[in-house]
């Protein structure tokens, strides 16, 4: 994997060493970790005082405060638990038709997985149609978890939706779900995918990858028969310039609609244009969202 992907270099991973994942919401988890939990528990961070109630452990009573106020108060602490990171890869052919775009997708996924396992998080990779599986705690584990050339492509966006519904737990857990896709699909399906992910995750991050061919699909000004990489359908395009202009308009509208939708649902939206350096994705784009520190 590292041989074929120019982004996956030791220096790339070294640049991620200082980063750790974060969530804007408190997480629920069965496993102790370094993240604040929504549960009051036995963490180190003070949360609040409350009146003593029957059944509370006497050890939680703040006796110093009792000596001052003559009232029983219980001291509560924020519980700290680990999160589960799920990387959802869009493995459709449109993602893989352009090598540079696909490498950037894999590198981004590998970087996120690396940050996760270095901070003792549970990292899962889900690249439909392959069922999700946990990433082993090593770089080799990361490489082997990423989708490879052998991973069959999914036919359309609804397949992605199907896999989320099938494999992600329906109950909100500590999961942080990152969707890596180009979102070239009807907006309705995209919205449904995001909603579905939201129902199963505390946090959802959308990494929207765009390739050079997504923005400039035609290499010449002559008439072409455009072959769809996903379903093989052929579309005759006679007026290239006019077609490209309208395509850019439609793409911009699509991006804006998706961005606004994510903003309204509390979903972190990160656009990764083709000219953005991959290290900048982490050091600027993701850090800027507060999800990576």
């Amino acid at each position, binding site marked *: 994997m590292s041989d074929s992907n120019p982004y996956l270099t030791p220096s790339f991973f070294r640049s991620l060493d200082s980063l750790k994942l974060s969530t804007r919401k408190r997480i629920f988890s069965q496993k102790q970790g370094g993240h604040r939990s929504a549960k009051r528990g036995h963490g180190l961070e003070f949360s609040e005082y409350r009146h003593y109630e029957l059944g509370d452990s006497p050890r939680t009573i703040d006796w110093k405060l009792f000596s001052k106020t003559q009232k029983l108060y219980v001291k509560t602490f924020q519980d700290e638990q680990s999160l589960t990171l799920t990387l959802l890869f869009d493995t459709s*052919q*449109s*993602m893989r*038709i*352009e090598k540079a775009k696909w490498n950037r997708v894999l590198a981004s996924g590998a970087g996120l997985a690396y940050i996760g396992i270095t901070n003792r998080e549970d990292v899962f990779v889900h690249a439909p149609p392959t069922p999700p599986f946990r990433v082993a705690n090593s770089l080799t584990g990361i490489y082997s978890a990423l989708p490879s050339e052998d991973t069959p492509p999914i036919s359309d966006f609804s397949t992605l939706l199907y896999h989320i519904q099938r494999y992600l737990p329906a109950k909100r857990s500590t999961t942080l779900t990152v969707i890596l896709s*180009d979102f*070239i*699909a*009807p907006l309705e399906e995209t919205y449904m995918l995001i909603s579905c992910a939201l129902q199963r995750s505390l946090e959802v991050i959308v990494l929207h990858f765009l*390739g050079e*061919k*997504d923005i400039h*699909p*035609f*290499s010449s000004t*002559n*008439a*072409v*028969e*455009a*072959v*769809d*990489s*996903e379903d*093989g*359908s*052929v*579309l*005759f*395009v*006679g*007026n290239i310039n*006019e*077609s490209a202009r*309208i*395509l850019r308009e*439609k*793409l911009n509208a*699509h991006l804006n609609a998706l961005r606004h939708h994510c903003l309204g649902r509390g979903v972190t939206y990160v656009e990764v244009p083709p000219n953005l350096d991959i290290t900048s994705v982490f050091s600027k784009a993701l850090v800027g969202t507060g999800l990576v520190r």
Partner: protein
Amino acid sequence: MNSIVAVLLSPSSLIIGGAFSASLIVVAGSYFLVRRARREVVSSTFFLSATQHSTSGRRKPRMPLRFLFELLLLALLGSFFLPTPSLIQGEKVALIIDTSLSMAMKYERGMTVFEGGKALATEEIKSTDEVTVLLTPRFPNSAFSSSITGSSLHETLRSHKPVYGEDSIPSALELIPARTFAKIIVVTDKQKPQNIPSSVIWREVRGTEKPTNLACLDLSLGPPSSINVSLLNSAKSAVLVRLSLYSLTEKKENLITSTVLPSDGEDTSQLALPLPAPLRPGSYVVRVSPEDARFVDYLSQDNELYFTIRHSTTQVRVVGEPLPIASLGNFQFQVATDSPPSAEIDVFNRCNAPPLLERPTLLLSPIPSSRAPQRKCVETRRITQWNSSHPLTRYIKFSLFSLDNASCVERTEGLESILRGEEGSLLDAGVKNSHRLIFTTLPLLTSSSSLSLSILSLNALTWLGDPLRGKLWEPLSLDEKSLLKIPLTTKKNIGAPHPGIYSTSDFAYPEVAKNFISVQESDPWNQAQYQNLNFPETVDKASVTATWHRPLLFSILILILVEYSYIALFLPPWNSRKKA
């Protein structure tokens, strides 16, 4: 088939057909562009195809060209299922064209005035008009049928040329029922007379140059050693003229003599062609031609005159198209019929018959103006009764006669009344002194008399010249066929035109009958037809002549569909989506 061709050649068809033929080039070009389009794999055609859905969903204004195509398609589809619509309505137009010889004058760009007039007439008349054409002086028998359309006018007029004769435009205008026609157009080189109604569109075509023309007007046998030729020289300058005399046989012409003589520079001049020997009985032709090669002779058909010499006591004049008898002068032809008159016929044009009739006699009453004042003549206007079995009345329908104050003949003993008017007999015939005798008051000698009178004259002469064979009323063998069978017309290109009529001539009364001037008029039974031309009934608008042609319309529809699909390929939104 002709109607299909006419529709295909109509302006609307040509415009539409031309436009779509031109668009075929675009379609062919588009087709080759499509064929040479290379394949290119894109990540997804989602945004390309999604454009179409979003556009049609919001019903954006379509591309103007495509929108026009759709409108055209709908209109054509609608018209295809509608009854054949009328597009253009023409008018009924009467066109009178002067074909007199002066129309042969030089006009512009080498055209004659006549050709210029034809072009002018073609411009005046729309292709959808329904045209009745009258050519003068060949009027009235030259009136074309009313089925001629403006589009076929040029083709119809192409074969016509100026001819001899006086134009009779006023007569033509009198004949035409003015209310029937939306327009009456006269094309001539003459000025509009004062008495012509203002509604008549008078198109005057003036020549730029007078024609220089030589014409052989007349000839007469002079002394045995020469022929006197009357020459018309339109050049009005003295020119050298070659006179040639040919004898005619069944197969060829033999030159007898040829002489160059100077004309005297006047309009007409008399030239004497010397003969090497007296002419024997036979058919001859005299031809004139300018000796100077620079002299442009505009009409070649007037350069020759045919004549026949036959020794007989009865001389018969043959009058051919289109010379009226009055213009013939002394030029005489001699007719050899199958049964030529063997006896000399006396024609008396006086009231009192000679006391002793020794020969067959045609006794004519004097014209009313010269009638002896002491005589009492009863006048009549209508023929009421006639003996239809008599040889004198063959080929004649007397019901068509209209008399102009004809007098009644005096009763002569032994003669039978063949024609009777309201007041008495108009023609008596019979035998006296073993000779046939006809006594009539009908104006047989008037050259402008009606055709029936001409036929009556011919019948009279034939009957009188037929030798008596014991049976007084023996029918003659002369039938319609033999009427036309004269030596001059049995050979092509020789002699007078075949529709001829015969007129006897003795030295005192050279003019007896007039000519037939066309095949139609030569047929005695056709009188009613040519005298009563079938002008169209009063209709303001002519029938529809330009219509949609369904097969043409169908092919246009297919073309539009093909072109529409190709244009859709090259203009967004795209709609050609197919499985590879």
